[in-house]
C-alpha cells in the first residue's frame, strides 16, 4: 500500500461532486484549508452533514454554490452573528435543508458506526423538526406501554473530512477528546484528514497517545495543512482568528462582499 500522506488536492480527490460529506462542529477541528481547496476545485452538489452544527465552513460552501443539501442542527457564526450565506440560501431556497437536532445527528452517525439501520432517540415528539423529517419514524416502543419513540435512519456519509493536530506516517491521527471524529470516520466509507503536522513516531505505539488516536486503518488519505483550521480554532492548539471572522461576517453580509471574500481569501490561495 502506498502511504496515506498526499498533497491536499490529491487527498481531496475522493470527494466527488454529489458526495455526502460529514464535517465536524466549529470547535472540533474544522478542515478550513481543505474547504477552501474544495471550493477552488469547484466541488458541486454536496450533501453536507455538519455534526452537529457548523459555522464558517458551511457558510462558505453554501455561498460558493457547493451545497445541494444541508443536514445539521444549526449554522451560526456565534458571537460574530448569523451565518449570512446560510440564511440567504435557506430564504431563497437554493439549498435543500434537513433540519435536525444535535443528538439526532450523533445517533444517526453512531448507527452507521454500529452497522444498524437506525437508532432510537428520546425527545423530538411534538416538534416541527420531527414533522418535517419524513425519513424519521415514530414507533411504539416494544419495551414500554403506549410509549412512542423516534427512530432515526443511519447516516452513512461517503466521506468524513476532518482536521486534527497531528498524524503519523502510518496514517494514525491524533484526535484527543474530539471523539465524534472517530465516530465520523467509523461511519463514513472514506475518511480524509488534514493535520497541522506529522508526528515523528507511531501514535499507536505510545499508550498515552494511542488513547486519543484514530487508527490509520480508517483513514484514506492525509494532507498536511499547517494551521489548517484557520480562521477557526483547533482545541488546545490555537483559538479563532476573531478579527478575520468579524471581517467575514461583514463581507459575507452581501453577495458582492462574499464574492470579494472568495476572491481574496479562497481563490487567491493566499490563505490555503
Amino acid at each position, binding site marked *: 500500500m502506498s502511504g496515506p500522506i498526499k498533497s491536499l488536492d490529491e487527498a481531496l480527490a475522493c470527494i466527488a461532486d454529489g458526495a455526502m460529506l460529514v464535517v*465536524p*462542529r*466549529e*470547535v*472540533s477541528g474544522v478542515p478550513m484549508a481543505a474547504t477552501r481547496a474544495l471550493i477552488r476545485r469547484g466541488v458541486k452538489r454536496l450533501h453536507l452533514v455538519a*455534526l*452537529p*452544527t457548523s459555522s464558517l465552513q458551511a457558510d462558505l460552501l453554501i455561498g460558493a454554490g457547493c451545497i445541494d443539501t444541508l443536514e*445539521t*442542527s*444549526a*449554522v*451560526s457564526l*456565534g*458571537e460574530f452573528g*448569523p*451565518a449570512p450565506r*446560510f*440564511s440567504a440560501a*435557506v*430564504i431563497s*431556497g437554493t439549498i435543500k435543508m434537513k*433540519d*435536525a*437536532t*444535535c*443528538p*439526532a445527528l*450523533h445517533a444517526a452517525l*453512531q448507527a452507521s458506526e454500529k452497522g444498524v439501520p437506525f437508532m432510537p*432517540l*428520546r*425527545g*423530538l415528539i*411534538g*416538534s*416541527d*423538526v*420531527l*414533522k418535517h423529517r419524513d425519513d424519521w419514524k415514530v414507533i411504539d416502543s416494544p419495551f*414500554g406501554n*403506549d*410509549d*412512542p*419513540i423516534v427512530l432515526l435512519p443511519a447516516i452513512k456519509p461517503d466521506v468524513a473530512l476532518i482536521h486534527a493536530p497531528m498524524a503519523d506516517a502510518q496514517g494514525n491521527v491524533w484526535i484527543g*477528546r*474530539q*471523539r*465524534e471524529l*472517530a*465516530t465520523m470516520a467509523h461511519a463514513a466509507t472514506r475518511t480524509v484528514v488534514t493535520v497541522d503536522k506529522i508526528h515523528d513516531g507511531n501514535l499507536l505505539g505510545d499508550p498515552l497517545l494511542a488513547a486519543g488516536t484514530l487508527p490509520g486503518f480508517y483513514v484514506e488519505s492525509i494532507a498536511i495543512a499547517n494551521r489548517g483550521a484557520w480562521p*477557526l*480554532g*483547533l*482545541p*488546545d*492548539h*490555537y*483559538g*479563532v482568528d476573531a478579527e478575520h471572522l468579524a471581517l467575514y461576517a461583514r463581507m459575507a453580509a452581501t453577495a458582492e462582499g462574499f464574492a470579494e471574500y472568495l476572491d481574496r481569501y479562497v481563490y487567491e490561495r493566499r490563505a490555503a
Partner: protein
Amino acid sequence: MNAAPRDFRSEELLADVIARLIGDVRHVAVGNASPIPATAALLARERGHGRPYVSLLGSPKNTFWTDGARELFDCAGQGRIDVFFLSGGQIDGHGNVNLVSTGDYAYPKVRFPGSFGSAYLYYVVPKVILFRTEHSRRTLVPKVDFISAPGTNAPNVFRPGGPIALITNRCLFGFAQGRFTLDSVHPGHTVDEVIEHTGFEFERTAAVPQTPPPSPETLKLMREVVAPQLAEVYPQFAAQVFGITLPLSAGTASG
C-alpha cells in the same frame, strides 16, 4: 435597557433571579454565549459551597467532556443534567420555542441558526430555564411559526424535563400546566408594560410582586467571587458588567 438607576445592574438582578430558580441541584449546564446564566450558575455554586457542579459549554476549562460532542446529550439522557437554559427567536405562551425560522418553513421570512439540541434537551432536563432578554411582541408571540421544541407533550410521551420559567429583561414568568404565570416584575418595570409587550396570554394574580433586588451579600459575592471566575470565560462581559479585567492574558476558549 438597564434597570432604573440603582445600586445594581440589570444583569446582576437577572443572575440573582436565575440562581434562585436553579435551586438545590447537582449539575447545571450553561450553553455557549450565555454570560448571565453562567453568572447565575457560578453564584449558585458559591452559595452551595461547590454544589451544583457547573458546566460552561464552549469553555474547555469549565467542562469535563472527554467523549466528544455527544457527551453533553448523553449526559442529559442519563439524567445527569438538572438545569439547562434555552432561548428562542420566538417563544409562545405554551412554552414552545422556535430556533428555526419565521413564516412558512418552506418559504421562510427570517432564518435563525437552527434548533441545536433543543428538540432533545427540552424534554430530558428537569429544569429548563427559558432566557430571552428582549421582551417584545416580536419575540414573545401567540404561536411560534416553527416548534423547535414544544413546551409540553401528551401525557404518554416520555418527558422528564421541560420549562420551569421564562426570564426576560422585564419580568419573570413561571411555567406550569402548559401556561406561563407572571411571577414578578423587575424593579423599574410594570405589569401594564409586560402586558403591552407580551404577545401571548399569561396568568397573573391581582397583585404581582416586584422581583426582589439582589441583597448586598449577593452583590458582594457576585462581584468579588463570581466575577473573577466568569472573566476567564466571558472577559468582555465581566469587564463591562463587573469592571473585572484579568491580569495579563485572559484565558480564552478555543472555540
